[in-house]
């Protein structure tokens, strides 16, 4: 790896902590972000010749804070000060002091930063875009590409999100346990959304956008390092790892969707599965089940099955039943119906999903599953109607193509 790349990685790695600390100091996202940018510019000047500091985050916080204070002072006096009055050389003692001061707040700083970006008042797409911009440090152009919108549209979306959170009331005092739990849960949900955006991309040509998935996993691990004893965060991370482990097998060489049963399981990334299983084991010991843990446990059963026919559908059915109690939703019931169809046949599964029709009238997977179940029952005409509905609702060209192949098979019969 060359020097620029390794400095880049150091800046990305230090970013959440540094921006989080700067946000606490300045209580304003815009100022914190500018201060961090300024510190990065100075790092790019200073690190190549002096070598990167032992603690990049502490260096960036210290330099960023001084740079921003200077700017504020300058703006107030409206007279220019010499540009180089900020000590870029940071003595070890100073760095240690700065680090000590900030370490105490480390956890809540990052959580606050994430929480502000994932503020419940923001629509999900804005949450994800803002988190990618502020926490992950992706450029507007990169985010625009990931969402397949124009750069100016993304710029606008992020500006709007910033304005909205600037008006939202987020206390800067260290949160109490209840508030911390609420923030943690909001952030976990946003990370899950970010992952899903990458995993089954909506409204774009690409069906999978792996970088979004990888960024979500990085944030989940970061959150787990901050809160190592939270079983739901273990569950979330495990869930993402299991899902992502299948990425190499989810599309064939032509970009067509390969469903779980047909995937070449030797392509699944074993390291990610091992890590997910380890996290799930840890989570179980806490005996505090939650929706992410249950979903991870379901994903783990698929990961553990060497062949599709080894899948423990009975256990999966039981876990979905648990999930229906923890987090009732028609989508959960729809997923459960897949397990039910394996255990008790397509007819029972079909009866189970029929009542969901009004709620899932706009949901691609509902019609996809309905068509497949009807097909199993030999009700070809009804299956065709369902598949046509599904195609109309497909989120990506790959989804539509996948249903079309099933339709083709129907016609050939």
């Amino acid at each position, binding site marked *: 790896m060359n020097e620029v790349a390794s400095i880049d*990685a*150091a800046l990305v*790695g230090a970013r959440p902590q540094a921006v989080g600390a700067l946000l606490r100091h300045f209580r304003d996202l815009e100022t914190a972000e500018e201060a961090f940018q300024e510190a990065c510019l100075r790092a790019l000047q200073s690190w190549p010749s002096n070598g*990167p500091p032992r603690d990049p985050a502490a260096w960036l916080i210290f330099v960023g804070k001084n740079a921003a204070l200077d700017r504020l002072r300058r703006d107030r006096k409206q007279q220019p000060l010499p540009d180089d009055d900020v000590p870029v050389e940071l003595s070890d003692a100073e760095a240690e002091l700065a680090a000590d001061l900030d370490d105490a707040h480390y956890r809540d700083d990052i959580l606050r930063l994430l929480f502000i970006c994932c503020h419940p008042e923001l629509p999900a797409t804005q949450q994800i875009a803002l988190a990618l911009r502020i926490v992950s440090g992706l450029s507007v152009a990169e985010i625009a590409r990931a969402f397949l919108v124009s750069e100016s549209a993304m710029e606008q979306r992020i500006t709007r999100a910033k304005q909205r959170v600037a008006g939202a009331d987020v206390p800067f005092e260290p949160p109490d346990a209840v508030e911390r739990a609420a923030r943690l849960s909001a952030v976990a949900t946003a990370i899950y959304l970010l992952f899903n955006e990458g995993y089954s991309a909506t409204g774009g040509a690409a069906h999978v956008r792996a970088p979004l998935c990888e960024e979500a996993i990085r944030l989940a691990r970061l959150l787990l390092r901050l809160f190592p004893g939270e079983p739901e965060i*273990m569950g979330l991370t495990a869930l993402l790892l299991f899902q992502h482990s299948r990425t190499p097998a989810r599309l064939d060489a032509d970009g067509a969707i390969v469903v779980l049963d047909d995937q070449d399981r030797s392509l699944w990334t074993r390291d990610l599965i*091992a*890590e997910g299983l380890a*996290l799930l084991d840890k989570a179980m010991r806490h005996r505090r089940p939650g929706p992410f843990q249950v979903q991870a446990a379901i994903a783990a059963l698929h990961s553990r099955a060497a062949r599709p026919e080894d899948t423990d559908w009975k256990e999966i059915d039981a876990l979905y039943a648990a999930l229906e109690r923890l987090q009732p939703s028609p989508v959960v019931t729809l997923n459960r119906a897949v397990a039910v169809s394996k255990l008790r046949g397509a007819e029972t599964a079909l009866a189970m999903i029929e009542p969901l029709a009004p709620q899932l009238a706009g949901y691609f997977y509902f019609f996809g599953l309905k068509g497949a179940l009807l097909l199993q029952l030999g009700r070809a005409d009804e299956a065709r109607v369902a598949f046509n509905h599904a195609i109309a609702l497909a989120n990506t060209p790959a989804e539509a193509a996948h249903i079309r192949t099933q339709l083709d098979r129907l016609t050939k019969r």
Partner: protein
Amino acid sequence: MLYAILCYDSEDLVESWTKEQDAQVIAKLDVVKQKLEREGRLGPTVRLLPTTAATTVRKGKEPIVLDGPFAETKEQLLGFYIVECASLEQAIETAKDLGRASSSQGAYEIRPLRLFHAGGLAT
């Protein structure tokens, strides 16, 4: 003498490497490993899963099980090499070779070791 060369680095940083950067580092380290292998000096090499997968058992009358790594530090133990070295000098040289290949900050801790049991685990 057998030495453990313990690799410490900031997990935040290493996780910020792109897949390509990670692959580059591994490829460079492999060159060093192959050299050690040819010299018949290379024992097991290990990359640890992220510290988030770690569990700590505090010894005591009532052992306490804690989530996470044993120590909270800026740099974490991310993996290790077991290498046969004629002297500390050679161990230091080996660590330097690895350091040049990995190009990140971090540190290598060199610990002479005594093998209790060579083991026969298939991997």
